[in-house]
């Protein structure tokens, strides 16, 4: 059974419709990439899942329809959403940011903190600093580390490589691969299609608020139109 399913989800920002009936499924333990041009509806799809935008249509978790989705409710159900732009609590310390990641579990366990610091030793060095003073790459690591503290069933990531040096972007995706191996289901929106298709198992391509293509990541890499539009060769 699929862990997460979207059925004919529509979303609008005021008068502008951003999603025209998106349907997709994410299996338990899957690593899914959402590809598409700017304005295709990738970010809105993540927002629809985490309940940060009003939608019609159904979102199913474990085969059950989720009524009245709210961000805090979805977080409690095991969905961790890391929005674009490395949303961190900029005036709080790195350690407090990580503690907040574990909010749905009550207090942060030292073991989970140690686990995050193992992945990101630089966060440990900077644990008492204000999050806003970290570099872009470090903030993305912090955002990811905070999501790890929630031990989510589904991790939603919006453009994790945006504005990062290629090496740092690779490091982030390397960590995602490890989390995936550890059993976390991952849905990532990524403009670097090459990088995303290299790590993901499945991918969907969105165009103007609709899913136009979906399948195994390896197949999509060979697909002529995907290659021309998103991989550029």
């Amino acid at each position, binding site marked *: 059974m699929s862990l997460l399913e979207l059925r004919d989800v529509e979303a609008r920002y005021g008068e502008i419709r951003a999603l025209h009936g998106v349907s997709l499924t994410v299996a338990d333990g899957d690593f899914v990439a959402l590809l598409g041009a700017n304005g295709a509806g990738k970010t809105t799809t993540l927002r629809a899942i985490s309940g*940060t935008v009003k939608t019609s249509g159904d979102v199913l978790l474990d085969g059950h329809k989720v009524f009245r989705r709210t961000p805090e409710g979805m*977080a409690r159900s095991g969905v961790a959403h890391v929005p674009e732009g490395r949303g961190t609590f900029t*005036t709080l310390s790195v350690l*407090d940011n990580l503690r*907040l990641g574990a909010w749905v579990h009550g207090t942060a366990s030292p073991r989970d903190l140690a686990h995050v610091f193992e992945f990101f030793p630089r966060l440990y060095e900077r644990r008492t600093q204000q999050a*806003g003073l970290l570099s872009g790459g470090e903030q993305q690591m912090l955002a990811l580390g*905070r999501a790890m503290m929630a031990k989510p069933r589904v991790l939603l990531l919006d453009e994790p490589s945006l504005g990062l040096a290629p090496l740092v972007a690779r490091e982030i995706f390397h960590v995602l691969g490890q989390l995936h191996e550890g059993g976390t289901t991952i849905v990532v929106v990524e403009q670097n299609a090459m990088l995303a298709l290299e790590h993901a198992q499945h991918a969907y391509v969105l165009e103007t608020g609709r899913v136009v293509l979906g399948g195994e990541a390896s197949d999509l890499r060979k697909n002529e139109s995907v290659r021309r539009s998103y991989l550029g060769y």
Partner: protein
Amino acid sequence: MTNFIQQIVSGLASGGIYGLLALAIVLIHRSTGVINFAQGEMATLSTFVCWALMDHGWAFWPAFGATLLLSFAGGVTLQAVVIRPIQSGPLLGIVILTIGLLIAFNGLDTWIWGGAAKQFHGPFSTAPIRVGGVAFSKQDLGVIAVAFVAVALIGALFTRTRLGLGLRAAAVNPIEARLVGIRVAAMLALGWGLAAMLGAVAGVMAAPSLFLEPNMMQTVVLYAFAAAVLGGMDSPIGAVVGGLLLGVLLNLVGTYVHWIGGELRLATALAVILGVLLLRPSGLFGRAALRRA
């Protein structure tokens, strides 16, 4: 010299009250960016409740405890019922609503209890004690002590508890806070509850030396605004230190600068606001938001 010390002690006592009310203002401002102009009238209403309980034969401390609980519940309810529906609207709308609340609470006090000033017997004696020529009362010392205890408790809540972390997170970035599972709406209501409770402490501490009437806190709240600006609108510690500094400053200026005297006390406080905004807009303890691009 004894007069100098005298002025400092009584300045600290009134400053403690400014600080408590400033702390209430800061708690709401830092979580929502709203200046609650009704904070003073909310404090007066709480004080009336305490007075009414004592008038019905309650002893001070039980009445005070019940007042704190009622004020907390009142603050939470006020936020949930009146503020939340327009929370997502423009900030100016909320600020104007708090001015409306100011007028409403003031009218409510007068309607229930009348406009005549009432004697309020606090827990601390106002009889002067003399130590080496300096006269102060238990009331003065009590107010200073209560202010410090309140700040220590609020500080501990914010920095030492999980709830405090949630309150801070909801204030810094409400959208992110919801994404990690924090019920931001509940945190905002809690902030109003805490602010109402602090206001009650300020009102009850001020009442024995001010007489209780519907306009009791109207000047006090202006000093509290000055204290909050002086300390930094977003700094709880700053609010209280700002209050104490302002209390002492006003007393010293009033005593030693003859052309100011008692009449220009309020104008001096406004000069402090103006000066701080010109020279150091983030206040003594406020920090300009640090952000690496």
